[in-house]
């Protein structure tokens, strides 16, 4: 194990100024007063139904907040971080607004759970409840700090149980590899709710599990002691910035109370243990020290305590009369406003010239956008190694042109890829990130927890933060790829609000949608039908500046007898089927949705109104696929315009088999679309 370096003792009971000590005592006292009062709000049915008391973490929480410089450093608090929040500059009044979920709560306007403190205006970021989730965000924003050359640090707070999470390992590994100025503060109170440390990991000093990381420094401190914590955090910050390297500070704390108000520690902690931890109440210790070393008199401390009581009474009253969020506000901030195309408002063009393949269109659009915006970044697996640029070479040549600071390989850790994009995006609003979310859509599943986070962020922060990123995924089958190189996963994603999902099927639309995605705020899931990358069928003329707005479908073939609503690979199958049907004397319209979220319901209404018959064709499973939602919308809104049942074609409710015989039997083809369409036309 690496030797722990000595920590300079900058702070001590004798050296620290009286003014500073007074500020600390005030913060610690008002923090504790609110911590103890919070359960009363629940008892009186006012709110604060989630409260994780921090008592016992006082030293480290005060210290973390004291080293934080707002609007310069970046802070990620966890649900037990009330004193850290206060120490960072969130006011006691704002803490109560958060606790009782008021519209003016700076964290979320009452949208997020209580005890989830944030103030994006100060770089105190909105966070998940998922333990350790924001370690990846801290790494991401630290990447930006390093790229832009700031002398600042990202600080992530978490309990010791969080190190059991795989993504926390990914965060530590990434910060170590990239040598990023980030501090992971592990507030160790020995329990994950009721689960003792020994059931989480073999090593009590959990930070030492990571002692093999080359660039990572580990500092242990007494999180119950203000001075030891201040010295540890001061050194950690200095080291992280000066060396541009990550630090873990493991602060030994005690949890004086239960995990939260839904937990009862009497069920699993002995009286002796509870007394033992109470004996080391950090606030009581700090008070004793102030008196013992004659820094304050009993009267002076009592005066501060009285002031705290008065202040708490006052802000309690004010907070109760603060406005509540309104029911009408629920649809605000689901998605930020997208980039608006003035030249191509419908996403249509009459360009001339040579046709380009879909892969070329994507590659050239990426390059054009990266040339125009120096705050663009792209990473993923297989992103950049000599002539290799992306698993299918979509990003070929980009690292050469834009350098390894903006175009780089990521470790094979999908959650890390997505989570650090979210994190980097927190640095400022100008940044736009494109990621290859996984080698194939099939491998995106490990990233789902970060996908969910990204989907929540804009709504959860009450419109204060949106991760501005485009997640590209090579999707779908028809390449003989089997179970793990054929998945198309949009059916599983469309029920998650907060992310746009686009699925082009031609080169021009791919270019136009990608440009819009990169220029827009918010998260866009950009699904690329990989079977079409090189396909001549998907090749089109692509104007250099083409833009396709979100939520604009495109009629790829006009007709009057029936509409096939489709997207992705199935667009081409549908066009082929329409061609076959024309030979039978039927005029079939093919509507390529291009965007699933937002959905162009207007174009659907218009087309169905004209043809009165609808077939929905997609590559994803028929059962539970997005076609079911479209069908339901049509049945609800356009029933009187229909001359037949809404029919659907999709894949079988099985994985995709590897043997081509199996693949053909499972995935939809033009013959199946033709057959169902014909039945409907003859209905």
């Amino acid at each position: 194990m690496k030797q722990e370096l000595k920590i300079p003792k900058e702070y001590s009971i004798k050296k620290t100024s009286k003014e500073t000590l007074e500020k600390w005592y005030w913060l610690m006292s008002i923090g504790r007063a609110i911590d103890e009062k919070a359960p009363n709000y629940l008892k009186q049915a006012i709110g604060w139904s989630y409260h994780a008391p921090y008592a016992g973490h006082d030293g480290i929480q005060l210290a973390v907040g004291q080293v934080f410089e707002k609007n310069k450093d970046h802070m990620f608090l966890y649900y037990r971080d009330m004193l850290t929040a206060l120490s960072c500059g969130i006011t006691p009044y704002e803490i109560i607004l958060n606790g009782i979920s008021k519209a003016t709560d700076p964290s979320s306007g009452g949208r997020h759970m209580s005890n989830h403190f944030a103030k994006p205006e100060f770089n105190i970021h909105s966070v998940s409840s998922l333990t350790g989730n924001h370690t990846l965000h801290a790494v991401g924003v630290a990447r930006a700090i390093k790229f832009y050359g700031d002398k600042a640090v990202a600080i992530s707070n978490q309990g010791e149980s969080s190190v059991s999470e795989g993504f926390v390992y990914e965060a530590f590994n990434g910060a170590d590899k990239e040598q990023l100025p980030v501090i992971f503060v592990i507030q160790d109170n020995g329990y994950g709710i009721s689960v003792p440390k020994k059931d989480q990991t073999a090593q009590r000093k959990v930070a030492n599990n990571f002692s093999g990381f080359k660039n990572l420094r580990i500092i242990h401190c007494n999180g119950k002691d203000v001075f030891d914590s201040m010295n540890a955090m001061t050194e950690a910050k200095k080291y992280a910035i000066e060396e541009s390297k990550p630090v873990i500070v493991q602060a030994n704390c005690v949890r004086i109370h239960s995990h939260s108000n839904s937990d009862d520690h009497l069920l699993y902690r002995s009286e002796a243990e509870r007394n033992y931890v109470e004996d080391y109440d950090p606030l009581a210790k700090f008070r004793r020290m102030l008196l013992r070393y004659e820094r304050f008199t009993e009267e002076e401390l009592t005066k501060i305590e009285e002031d705290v009581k008065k202040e708490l009474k006052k802000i309690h009253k004010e907070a109760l009369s603060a406005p509540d969020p309104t029911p009408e506000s629920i649809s605000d901030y689901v998605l930020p406003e997208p980039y608006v195309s003035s030249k191509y408002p419908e996403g249509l063009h009459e360009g001339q010239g040579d046709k380009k393949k879909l892969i070329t269109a994507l590659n050239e659009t990426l390059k054009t956008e990266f040339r125009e915006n120096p705050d663009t970044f792209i990473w993923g697996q297989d992103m950049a190694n000599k002539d290799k640029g992306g698993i299918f070479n979509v990003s070929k040549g980009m690292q050469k042109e834009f350098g390894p600071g903006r175009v780089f390989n990521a470790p094979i850790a999908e959650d890390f890829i997505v989570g650090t994009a979210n994190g980097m995006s927190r640095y400022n609003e100008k940044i736009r990130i494109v990621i290859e979310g996984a080698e194939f859509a099939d491998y995106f599943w490990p990233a789902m927890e970060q996908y969910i986070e990204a989907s929540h962020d804009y709504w959860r922060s009450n419109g204060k933060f949106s991760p501005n990123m485009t997640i590209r995924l090579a999707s779908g089958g028809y390449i003989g790829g089997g179970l793990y190189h054929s998945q198309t996963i949009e059916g599983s994603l469309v029920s998650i609000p907060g992310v746009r999902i686009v699925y082009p099927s031609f080169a021009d639309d791919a270019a136009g949608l990608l440009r819009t995605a990169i220029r827009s705020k918010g998260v866009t899931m950009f699904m690329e039908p990989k079977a079409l990358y090189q396909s001549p069928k998907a090749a089109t003329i692509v104007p250099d500046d083409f833009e396709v707005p979100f939520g604009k479908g495109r009629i790829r073939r006009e007709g009057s007898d029936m509409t096939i609503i489709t997207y992705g690979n199935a667009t081409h199958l549908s066009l082929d089927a329409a061609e076959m049907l024309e030979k039978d004397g039927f005029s079939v319209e093919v509507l390529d949705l291009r965007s699933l979220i937002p959905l162009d319901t207007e174009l659907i209404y218009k087309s169905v109104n004209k043809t009165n018959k609808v077939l929905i064709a997609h590559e994803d499973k028929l059962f539970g696929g997005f076609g079911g939602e479209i069908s339901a919308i049509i049945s609800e809104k356009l029933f009187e315009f229909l001359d037949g049942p809404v029919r659907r074609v999709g894949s079988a409710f099985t994985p995709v088999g590897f043997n081509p015989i199996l693949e053909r039997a499972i995935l939809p083809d033009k013959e199946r679309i033709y057959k169902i369409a014909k039945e409907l036309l003859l209905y």
Partner: protein
Amino acid sequence: MNKTAIIYSFNTQKSKKISEKVIDAFGGSKVDSINAEEVDKKVIEKYDQFIFSVPTWFDGELPNYWDEFIPDLEEIDLKGKKFALFGLGDQKNYPENFCDAIGIMAEIIEGLGGELVGQTSAEGYKFESSRALRGDSFVGLPLDQENQARLTNERVKRWVDQLKKEF
């Protein structure tokens, strides 16, 4: 007043019991007992020889009563004074920091010029690491009432015999 003071927390149970064993082994009235919860600079300045009871708390920390005294202790010149340290620890449940507090206190005392006496062999203990360990010896006497209570009396006796020579 004796030459030697034994300082331990009067508010504890296990540490207090062990301290009393140490006192008995010294012959009762040969050492002065002082409550660690109330120790101050004057006490340290007054005596030449000390026995500290320094149990390890949590994952390798000093108990708060010692920790709170350290800022005062750090201002005293300990040259010419002798210190013997003992303390409780738990080899089985806290093997990574067995009796670390003895080691922490030893480092502080040495840093202030004090002389440590009462080193003991690490033989017979089973743990992973300890700040109290220097080579094959501990800088004081670790005791483990949780797992090796039956060895305590003998360990105390042997240690006090040793101290009588080293003081």
